[in-house]
């Protein structure tokens, strides 16, 4: 196995072009497990750890440009206000040691349906900055995942950063596992309110071949909120609407039975998480509105 250690981003792109089967490695929290357990024997590893810029982020007007290798710990510590959903998701990743090493770029590269950041990215709205020696393209995150542990990156492309929309409203993330910490998702759900556009976005993890948005649930809820004038009134969401939303989220999933949980449980749990997280975000939204009015 070759171990390539580019000193700069340009060198990394050149190396990836020259060795298209090379597997990028940063924190190694996923790749090393696969290697150690002999699930994968790449011809080459492309070590990104010498490229400092990948561990940086920029908070812009509309988005946060998050370097591919920014560890989860940094997101939790420094980006909670801008990326609350992702920060919550980051908190559920592995152990403190794993959170010090693992990154969103790695989660996207692995494209496991169980990756914790995906539902938060889908709900917030994000684009993946994919770069090769041929140039740069921005890929909306919902188009990024193409199958179980597959994404739409070309063989010569590397993830440089993820551009995530800054929160313009409350966000939540919730994940079911069969212990209370350090657990792979049985299923997960993210929701983000976008008061500026008067929309709600969602993300489902570990309950379909890829991370997905529950689009029918989003559309139903968007029109229900609009019709009832709830964005303006700040009234509570009628229980029937929340229930219908939860059922549509549940219906959007296409889960399997496996050693971590049954398909029926995953559907059920998604419905519960959808109802609860919608309730939490909407309560927070109402609270924000009230205090805005009082001010």
């Amino acid at each position: 196995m070759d171990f390539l250690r580019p000193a700069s981003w340009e060198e990394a792109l050149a190396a990836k072009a020259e060795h298209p089967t090379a597997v990028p490695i940063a924190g190694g929290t996923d790749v090393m497990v696969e290697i150690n357990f002999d699930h994968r024997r790449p011809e080459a590893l492309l070590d990104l750890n010498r490229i400092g810029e990948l561990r940086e982020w920029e908070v812009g007007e509309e988005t946060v440009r998050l370097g591919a290798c920014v560890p989860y710990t940094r997101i939790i510590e420094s980006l909670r206000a801008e990326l609350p959903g992702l920060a919550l998701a980051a908190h559920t990743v592995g152990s403190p040691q794993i959170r010090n090493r693992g990154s969103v770029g790695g989660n996207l590269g692995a494209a496991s349906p169980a990756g914790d950041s995906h539902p938060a990215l889908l709900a917030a709205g994000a684009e993946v900055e994919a770069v090769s020696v041929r140039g740069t393209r921005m890929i909306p995150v919902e188009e990024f995942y193409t199958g179980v542990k597959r994404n739409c990156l070309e063989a010569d492309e590397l993830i440089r950063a993820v551009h995530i929309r800054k929160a313009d409203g409350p966000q939540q993330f919730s994940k079911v596992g069969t212990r209370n910490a350090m657990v792979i998702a049985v299923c997960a759900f993210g929701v983000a309110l976008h008061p500026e556009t008067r929309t709600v976005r969602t993300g489902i993890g570990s309950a379909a071949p890829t991370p997905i948005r529950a689009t029918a649930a989003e559309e139903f809820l968007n029109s229900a909120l609009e019709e009832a004038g709830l964005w303006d009134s700040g009234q509570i969401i009628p229980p029937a609407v929340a229930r219908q939303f939860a059922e549509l989220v549940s219906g959007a999933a296409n889960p399997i039975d496996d050693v971590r949980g049954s398909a029926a449980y995953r559907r059920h749990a998604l419905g519960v998480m959808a109802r609860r997280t919608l309730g939490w975000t909407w309560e927070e939204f109402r609270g924000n509105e009230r205090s805005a009015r009082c001010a």
Partner: protein
Amino acid sequence: MGATRTPSNITQGSKAKGGIGESTLRPDGTLKVTGEFAYSSDMWHEDMLWGFTLRSPHAHAEIKSIDTSQALAQAGVYAVLTYDDLPTDVKNYGLEIQDTPVLAHGRVRHHGEPVALVAADHPETARRAAAKIKVEYVPLPVVHDEASALAEDAPLLHPGRDDHHAGHVPHPNIVHRQPIHRGDVAAARARADVIVSGEYEVGMQDQAFLGPESGLAVPGEDGGVDLYIATQWLHSDLRQIAPVLGLPPEKVRMTLSGVGGAFGGREDLSMQIHACLLALRTNKPVKIVYNRFESFFGHVHRHPAKLWYEHGATRDGKLTHMKCRIVLDGGAYASASPAVVGNASSLSVGPYVIDDVEIEAVALYTNNPPCGAMRGFGAVQACFAYEAQMDKLAAELGLDPVEFRQLNAMSQGTVMPTGQVVDSPAPVAELLRRVKAMPLPPEKQWETAGESADVRALPGGLSNTTHGEGVVRGIGYAVGIKNVGFSEGFDDYSTARVRLEVINGEPVAIVHTAMAEVGQGGVTVHAQIARTELGVTQVTIHPADTQVGSAGSTSASRQTYVTGGAVKHTCEAVREKVLELGRARFGSYHPAWATAELLLESGKVVTDGGEVLADLVDVLEGEAIDLELEWRHRPTEPFDLRTGQGNGHVQYSFAAHRAVVEVDTDLGLVKVVELACAQDVGKALNPLSVVGQIQGGTTQGLGLAVMEEIVVSPEAKVRNPSFTDYLIPTILDTPTIPVDVLELADEHAPYGLRGIGEAPTLSSTPAVVAAIRAATGLALKRVPVRPEHLTGT
């Protein structure tokens, strides 16, 4: 009821500083916490090779052929061994029944069975070479449960059995069967006002020790081998290893290396013989280390069990009778199955007085992973079932579950179903009283001063699944009974060598045993015993090896009792020698040498009145006293094969738990808020270690209750051999565990102590499940309880 003390103040007992009763710190503690402790997997030897084991991908298959030529041709490979390379006629091993092939011969009986070995100059080279070994398998039909094992045309796991159980089992796929009959169940049943029955199931738990199987075999110049190994019983390993190698036992020299936990999983051999074979073949040191995946195939697990119980009681709450049938899945090889059957049957009644019982326990041979020893050993499975039955009966009778248990609790003098009289304290009702009397943890601990909930205190934890919605609290109780020591007539002795001499002007005791320190704290306790008995400050614990006699197994809650007993016994003999020397040298100077009771204290010979007669340094005068002695507890008897009668056990051990859980009833997630434990320990030799053992056992029981299970498919394949999918409790899953320690001396045991390691593992599981039942109203007949069971999905 005798005086009871909480852990913080049970420090009296010995006048010697650092003697028994003190919470002296363990010598390995800091090293382990700081990561400096050398485990068996850390060993290294110049020029050493790495061994690798090729394992069967099938649960049951015929091996048509094995072609090792391509593996042997790979650069860096020194040896490839199969069954045909075994050096002697002894090709099997086993704890009680020698039915386990060192390497598969013509047939594999379980997923992961060792088929071939490779030694190479790099672990990766060894792994790649193993992948080049061509094994031609023809899959065979799989036996995976009682129905398929006992079917008319069932394939026999071990045709032509000639072991000592073969003659009395009803079917060759039953390893051992133990019935117990006592009293008149039909008559007693007729007296019952209420009859409750239930079917229960316990999943396959793994010991999940953190240090994987590993060791280093170094060939000796005399044709023998030195094996540095993490194990639970050096001499049991030696007895099984030497015949396979064709070496006399003295040429297989074993030294204990750093053991990263055991819990029963190191009672059977793993890589011991394999490493020795490769070392002797290549004449080079060979190290084998399993990774986590392989470790799940490298040791036996806890027997999964199905249990059928019937109990009756009168309207006023007295138990009338009990009938039960316990089916344990032993997997492909016998391992400790016969002894597990003995425990499951003889302890199936629990810590209750029931005079009329009909009991049957069996262990099956199947193609599932082999199962054997794990903390609690047959008593865990039974306790889950009988405690569920107690709650059911109490509910049926409209009685408080604790009062109902107390009404039927055994005590000193109770006769067990085996006819054995419990002849030391059995404070079952008192333990229940104590655990119930502890203050309850506050409600809704997730509520914080601010607006947001502290999710760490909620089911789901940091996964942020609830902020209090759907959360219901439940409280449950359980109590259990475990035997201490090896039972059924086994000669369960230990050996200790103690040397007392003056080094640099100070008396020093050296304690040498073959006891495996697996984390239980035995080395700490041995030093405490030597200080107490010999009145010295300096005690050196010699590394455990086979240059001294057997210390028996570090299992069955027995080491402090039996090897601790041997250390005490040998120290007493050494003390007598010291006093003999003293009398010879100084007897004429003071009459008390002849007349008084003499003790060794603070490096001096003193009278029981406290008068100093001589300095130990002067008494010894350059001489060393060095003794190696065996010590035995009271003998036990086998259980009668038809009636189950017999004084089979050495000592009984009791613990009770109260579990407080909070269940997210919508998502089926559980947070164990508190697991209070009360346990009688006879005498706490090291109170801090006692509490640690109780908290550890309690947590392991919690794991079985809500998460720990090796999932085996109907094809008998292991589906979750990793810590990603075999979940053990994290610190966030571990509740506060208040411990109330009771010390009622057992007059038959050294210092009155009671073995403690296993009892807390028994009652923890049913207490947690009882609490979940209380929170949800669900019947819950199986552990581990999964979210699916709680949500009907």
